[in-house]
């Protein structure tokens, strides 16, 4: 909807800026949560930064590998500030791997660390939804509801806004739950469950879904998997904590 902002002679890319804002606020919440749990903030912040940098570098490297002859002839293009030449899935995998290795080296406890990161992740999802709203990605199917938005030549469900609203609710739930005496991993897995439920519902209103098996939306299948995994995970973690007491 608002991909660029004109400020005099500068055109600011709004989605990128929103994502940057999301990283900044997410980092802040993660540090706050670490402090509240009397855990050192440096390793937590380090983990996030390592994950992000490795993720972005990995996304560019894997993209370049796919088109190796192009980048061989034009090596300067490797450092171009172009988000279109990043491989998202490979980048995410690289980032997560790097973060995990970093966490292991700093001897961070897995589930407690994930819990500490969760408020940051939850707030980032809000910014991510708003960035999509600005860029027009993740758009909705054409509709006649009175709150439809005009996008890509049709009146559509404002699915990016549905996402932003749901993610705000999830953040509120996470915010309240984190203080409760539960068990390590509870907050993180509960977040995965709630976020996936939202994705499952909202994906049904999207106009850009990847279809598998003829009529099924790929995003919904993934969400169902995550919902099942997190329901099981909550049970296992609850029992594990029970045995430890």
């Amino acid at each position, binding site marked *: 909807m608002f991909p660029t902002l004109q400020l005099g002679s500068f055109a600011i890319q709004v989605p990128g800026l929103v994502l940057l804002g999301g990283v900044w606020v997410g980092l802040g919440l993660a540090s706050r949560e670490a402090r509240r749990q009397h855990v050192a903030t440096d390793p937590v912040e380090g983990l996030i930064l390592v994950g992000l940098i490795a993720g972005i570098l990995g996304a560019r490297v894997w993209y370049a590998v796919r088109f190796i002859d192009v980048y061989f002839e034009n090596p300067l293009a490797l450092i171009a500030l172009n988000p279109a030449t990043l491989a998202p899935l490979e980048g995410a995998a690289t980032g997560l791997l790097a973060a995990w290795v970093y966490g292991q080296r700093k001897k961070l406890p897995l589930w407690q660390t994930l819990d500490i990161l969760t408020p940051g992740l939850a707030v980032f999802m809000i910014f991510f939804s708003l960035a999509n709203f600005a860029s*027009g*990605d993740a*758009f909705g*199917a*054409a509709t006649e509801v009175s709150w439809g938005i005009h996008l*890509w*030549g*049709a009146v559509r469900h404002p699915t990016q806004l549905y996402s932003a609203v749901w993610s705000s609710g999830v953040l509120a739930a996470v915010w*309240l*739950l984190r*203080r*409760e*005496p*539960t*068990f390590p991993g509870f907050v993180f897995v509960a977040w995965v469950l709630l976020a996936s*439920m939202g994705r*499952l*519902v909202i*994906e*049904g*209103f*999207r*106009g*850009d*879904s*990847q*279809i598998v098996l*003829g*009529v*099924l*939306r790929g995003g*919904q*299948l993934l*969400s*169902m998997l995550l*919902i*099942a995994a997190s*329901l*099981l995970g*909550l*049970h296992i973690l*609850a*029992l594990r904590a*029970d045995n430890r007491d």
Partner: protein
Amino acid sequence: MSKTYVSGKLIPHIRDPLRWFLFSLAVLLAGVVWVWASAAPANSVTGGRIPSPREGFVAPDFTLELLDGGEVTLSDLRGQVVLLNLWASWCPPCREEMPAIQNVYNRYQARGFTVIALNTTYQDGEREASEFIEEMGLSFPVALDRTGEVSRRYLLRALPTTFFIDTEGVIQKVVVGGPMSEALIRSTVEALLPEEE
């Protein structure tokens, strides 16, 4: 007290295998029902792509009345190569290129090629369009844009404008102005059609 709300109420349910299993089953079942209810055929969604009347983007979808009666929906034609030609009866280059389009239509229709001649009826007239088609002996589908909505969606600037759409619904070539030569139309369509068996 909110301090023990979750621990007191939720966690015993999470620990109890039977209760949690039944709850999980109910959630997953509701999920399956929703997935089924919101299922959509592949041609009604864009598979991650953004619709825009430009080369490399998914052709914006529309449903319009046909001159001969009935309707046509662009996304229903996925799997075929589509030549979308925007025209009006008073436009001379449109008139000049119609025979070429008809020839290519005749030649490749059996291989999965079709034409939608989109008449800009909002700035023309249904009667004039009908007479034009009859006079030129054209046999491909003619759609009527009575309100100008679809022409707007395709950012129509000059007549004629032609969009060559591949089997996945992606616009591969845009030609503004005319008349197009038969060679141009044929070569573009040939390139988009699947290999002949």
